[in-house]
């Protein structure tokens, strides 16, 4: 259980360092990359971090199969290629994948529902690691359970690999609304609130006092355009994850950034536009300019057309 100081902040040295790195990423864009060239494009476009993975969610969705941690060789190449922090995903509950990622020197581990879960009951005990973790959440209770397990950053879950922002919006609104509701409760009411949210009382009390999560709250899943990024920032996200939105052309086909200069330019323009939109999320004039400059958008998949069993966001508990 995280300890707190008198100001309702996390107190342990380990956790302060983990949350500290998350603080440095605020206001930025974290981009999914599948090879060194994409990682270089992301850094050049102004990404604050890259997420190294074998297949972006749109491809996992289209191709099926078991989605696992990326190959160590790929992760090492990407770490070598860029100076910004490198993240990588481990399967839910797969603490051995997380141990490997920590050993490789990854700066942040994403215990992610986008990969096939390895444990249907337990998430990773994230306090056991020096490397910070980010976890997804659809509501306040889920977010606080992850924080209790040691997550140093929450990303509100959208529906990854669709290019449809609707679920990212729904879950960000849900978490913000639940946090606001806690701030008006009396001290006695917080015990029942902890029971309702199925979250530790100490964390519920912390949120009730500050009105926000004790760790940074980023948004992920379905963000595909500069306007989507600005929308999520205005709704309360502190930074943006973009997965399939930058380097994908069709559902399962990435832009060929290595051999095709036109497609490379398209990826660069999308990446730069989303970075600018995330900084100037409150400035419609600049948002209009960058939206105009961007060439092409991932085709996308309406999330409402997906069967319940096809949803990635329902993984994790």
């Amino acid at each position, binding site marked *: 259980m995280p300890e707190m*100081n008198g*100001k309702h902040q996390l107190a342990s*040295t380990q956790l*302060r*360092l983990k949350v*500290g*790195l998350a*603080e*440095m*990423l*605020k*206001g*930025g864009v974290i981009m999914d990359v599948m090879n060194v060239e994409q990682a270089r494009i992301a*850094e*050049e*476009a*102004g*990404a*604050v*971090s890259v997420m190294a993975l074998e297949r972006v969610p749109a491809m996992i969705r289209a191709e099926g199969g078991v989605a696992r941690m990326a190959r160590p060789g790929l992760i090492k190449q990407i*770490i070598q290629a860029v*100076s*910004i*922090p490198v993240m990588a995903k481990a399967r839910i509950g797969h603490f051995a994948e997380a141990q490997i990622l*920590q050993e490789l*020197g990854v*700066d*942040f581990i994403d215990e992610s529902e986008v990969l096939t879960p390895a444990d249907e009951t337990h998430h990773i005990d994230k306090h056991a690691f*020096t*490397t*910070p973790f980010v976890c997804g959440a659809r509501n306040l209770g889920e977010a606080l359970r992850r924080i209790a397990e040691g997550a140093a950053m929450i990303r509100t879950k959208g529906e990854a690999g669709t290019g449809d922002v609707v679920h990212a919006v729904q879950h960000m609104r849900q978490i913000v609304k639940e946090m606001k509701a806690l701030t008006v409760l009396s001290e006695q009411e917080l015990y029942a609130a902890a029971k309702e949210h199925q979250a530790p009382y100490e964390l519920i009390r912390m949120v009730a006092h500050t009105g926000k999560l004790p760790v940074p709250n980023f948004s992920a899943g379905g963000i595909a355009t500069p306007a989507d990024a600005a929308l999520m920032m205005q709704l309360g996200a502190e930074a943006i994850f973009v997965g399939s939105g930058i380097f994908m052309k069709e559902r399962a086909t990435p832009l060929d950034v290595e051999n095709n200069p036109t497609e490379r330019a398209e990826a660069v323009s999308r990446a*730069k536009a989303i*970075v*600018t939109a*995330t*900084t*100037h999320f409150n*400035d419609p004039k600049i948002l209009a300019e960058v939206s105009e400059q961007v060439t092409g958008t991932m085709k996308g998949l309406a999330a409402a057309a997906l069967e319940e069993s096809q949803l990635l966001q329902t993984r994790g508990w």
Partner: protein
Amino acid sequence: MTESSGRGRIGVLAIQGDYAAHADALAEAGATPILVRKPEELRELDGLILPGGESTTILRFLEKHNFLEELRQFCSSRPVFGTCAGAILLSREVRNPQQPSLAVLDARIERNAYGRQIDSSIVNGETTLPGGALEMVFIRAPRFLSLGADVEVLARREQDPVLVRQGKVMAATFHPELSSDRRVHQAFVDLVARFRKD
């Protein structure tokens, strides 16, 4: 004039990074923090903080929007304070990799000099600021490789200078905004106030 405006209007560059933590720290030190995202927003300010974050991200942004030159002019006329990524942007020469900078602090600095996130640490170090040892939060921190003769060292981590001042430019390779000790921000607020009087 109110007490807070008397202490100066201090901007925090809010392109990316932990600018909100700096704004809170400035308010606690008695200044009025103002978030800055456009060059024209620099005009009304008495001082500026360049926060921690990713120096490449901030640099790309500044280069794109003709912000770098405006910022360089600002730094030559009013006090600035950079932490971590901000210290990298202020230094004359940047290593690992080489990258452009504002070059207003006579220092050579190496990025990610202590290693990756797993090597980040919180240490107590010696400082010339009154009040004894200072808590320092280092996150993927840079290191000053060398300093010009005019640069005063205000705090060290063992042998390494980690908080320095040259005239009206202050820089820290750690994150005072992530500690509850406000002496470093207070020193900058005082510098801004002194400079306003001069």
